[in-house]
């Protein structure tokens, strides 16, 4: 069957035999966007987190058929070196990654959180960011999340003259 969706701003249609194929593998192996990672295949670690219609989704357990007509954003579409997302900018400033493998999932989860809760408390962060990082970079991640809020505030277009 054919499944169409928008990914990182571009319309894409994929021909897929098994509509239960997790979105993760379509993104990684068919669309060649390798930034979204495989960690566990059971939505338990969050390495595969991307956005579907603005929501953080663990794509290893999200059948591709549900992506029909939706807007998907991956780490590659979140921002780039010239125009980093505030979360990516904060991750750079705080020098968060160590091995780096889980970091796209954390940044995607954080970006989705900031869409809903623009200035999260530590309790909000504890409750909403529950991916797994084996290098245990949590201490810097928390600092980076708070820093991302500041960057987001600074970047806001000024409404007053």
């Amino acid at each position, binding site marked *: 069957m054919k499944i169409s969706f928008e990914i990182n701003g571009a319309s894409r249609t994929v021909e897929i*035999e*098994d509509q239960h*194929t*997790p979105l993760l*593998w379509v993104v990684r*192996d068919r669309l*060649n*966007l*390798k*930034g*979204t*990672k*495989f*960690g*566990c*295949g*059971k939505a*338990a*670690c969050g*390495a595969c987190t991307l956005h579907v219609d603005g929501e953080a989704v663990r794509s290893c357990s999200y059948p591709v058929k549900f992506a029909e007509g939706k807007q998907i954003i*991956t*780490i*590659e579409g979140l*921002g*780039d*070196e010239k125009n*980093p997302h505030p979360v*990516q900018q904060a*991750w*750079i400033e705080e*020098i*968060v*990654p*160590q*091995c*780096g*493998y*889980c*970091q*796209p999932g954390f*940044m995607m989860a954080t970006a989705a959180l900031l869409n809903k809760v623009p200035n999260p408390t*530590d309790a909000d*962060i*504890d*409750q909403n*960011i*529950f*991916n*797994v*990082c*084996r*290098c*245990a*970079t*949590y*201490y*810097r*991640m*928390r600092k980076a999340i708070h820093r991302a809020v500041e960057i987001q505030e600074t970047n806001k277009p000024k409404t007053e003259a």
Partner: protein
Amino acid sequence: MTKEKKKLSRRKFLVRGGLGTIGVLAVGTYLFRNTIRRGIAGMVNTADTPYMGNTSTPIIWFEITAQNKVIVHSPKVEMGQGTFTSLAQMAADELEVGIDQIQVVHANSISGNIDGFATGGSTSVSALWVPLRELAATMREMLKNEAAEKIGISVSEVSVANGVVLGGGKTMTYADIARNVKEWDVPDTPMLKDVKDYKFVGKAIPRVDLKDKVFGAPIFGMDASMPDLLFGAVVRPEYIGAKYIGADISKAEDMPGVVKIIKENDFVGVVATSLIEAENAKEVIEAEWQVERNWQTADIEDMIKVGKGEPFLIQKEGDAEEILDDSEGLITSEYKSPIGAHAQIEPNGALAHVEENKVTIMMSTQVVKITRDEIAERLDMDADKVNIVPTFLGGGFGRRLHTPNAVQAAVLSKAVGKPVKCFFTRKEEFQNDTFRPPTHHVLKAKLTSEGAIKAIEHNVSSGDVAFGSPMLPGIAEPILGADLGAWRGGMIQYGAIPNFRTISWRQKLPFATSWWRSLGLLANTFAIESFMDELAITAKVDPVTFRLSQIQDDDRGFRLKEVIKAAAEKSGYTDKVIKGRAMGFAVSTDANTPCAQVAEVSVVNNKIKVHKVTCAMDPGLVINPDQVRAQCEGAIIMGMSAAMFEKMDIKDGQLTPTIYGPYQMALMKHAPKEIDVVLLQNSDTPGAVGEPPLGPIGAAIANAVFRLKGERLRSMPLELS
């Protein structure tokens, strides 16, 4: 403060000796003499691990691009520990280029720049500290010599800065100089610069891989790709000790996307056109396994007991045995740690492309050479036809110190004549991990009437860590006697105690146990430093003063005392419970790096909460203070995770759990809100960083809990009754 270091031969660019050499020297005359074993144990515990690769010429290390950048081909892999950044700093300073002009990449195995050993043991920076700077300085002189010749002046008339040589009124970039040079004269190694003159060494340079990792670049083994790529899956055992007998593949052959089912003597695998198809086909292969015994957790706990297995005396001073022989005034405690999983997020796997006379393997591995040799042997090819292309590792932690799964990927690729990528599932990772072995510790001591330690003894029972590893030659086992990985951190570090000894009890377990970041350090320090706390309380002395009074007055003792004092001072250590929070103190020495930590905890709903950790560490000369701090922060939380949550069980022959969540780990909500790292540099050379800060945290937490609740937790994971 200078440190007396054993000077290795400074004949330039000779391959330096290593662990293997220690074994060769000792064999023959002294094979079964215990004093020699103890001597070797002491050497392994304190000696700097030399670099075991080719440092004969800078040519295989550095590549100069047309854009005047220098590519450093690193024989050490980057798994998050920050080695690439440190190597860039060291190379840039001696090469006289800007840090932005340096790019560090993994050296392919056919380049000849291959580590003879591994990436592990917190040795990469310390082992390359002298050789890499010498190579970089030599390369700089080679470029200057070549420039002088091209310009037609004497080399004394040229100067160099930022990768540009000036002389005779002319300027030439390194790229200009290197262009069309076919042969380089390698001069004598020049003098290295003074450390104080370095521009990058010692500075908090951002990680060189930072942007790739923030913008999602495809840099990991699992991201590797090739044209015409197929996907493999291998049936892996689900039971402890399962031996592969054979397989019925009839159902799998007709599954969608299947290209071929490959039956070997030792495994069965499938190749399909997508990963999901390969996994689906694998699920319907009916493999037959022979299982000898239905293991349970209790069986393993019964094996891992001091008094069972083979004992080896690894440390002895005075006469602890006799003093601790009778029960009068004897203080004794037992401690335990469970089986731990690596649980690194990127599963093991490899992309293999086997062609007529050439093999290419792209993968995350800590052992490039061993993996190359294993593939060459299996495919009956020359090792120089096998090119291992290391990628960035999605976590190492010791899990990739043996990666024979690459051999399976190569066999699958050869069978279909196309590149094949083959990875573990998460369940397979948990079931086939090379686990951190469980441990059991018995500590005994007697105090003097003044409250000092008169005698102390540490007995540790553990599964193997280093023994059985392809890295350690089999010959080393009878020489060493005790497993150097199992007793890492197990020795008594308090040299002023007149009588002490450590005995390591070896137990071979029925499942694979191996290197797990810091090896025995985490469990051994938990036991020893919890016991030190018990002794301090018995002696009615605060734990900081108590420890300081047991330390000898030499260089090692000085550095140990300094981290203890720094951690106590920075944390404002007190024995008092303030506002429902208590502090716990612990200190360890790992690979010459002393590290003291203070944990500040509370208990809410019977659950331990760690609010703040203060960490004072002395790794010697610090190349990158930001990355040393990052290693401390990560190691502290990873150590917390192991000490407070992690535990593998064995149920009816199977290791369990097999997924994150049920395998409990520290998450964001458990991480301390404050981590305060103090770095001391009481040695003029860089030492170990990645593992030492994992040592004290378990005991620091348990000691704090005792002060708060009066309950002594002697078993990891730490749980209140």
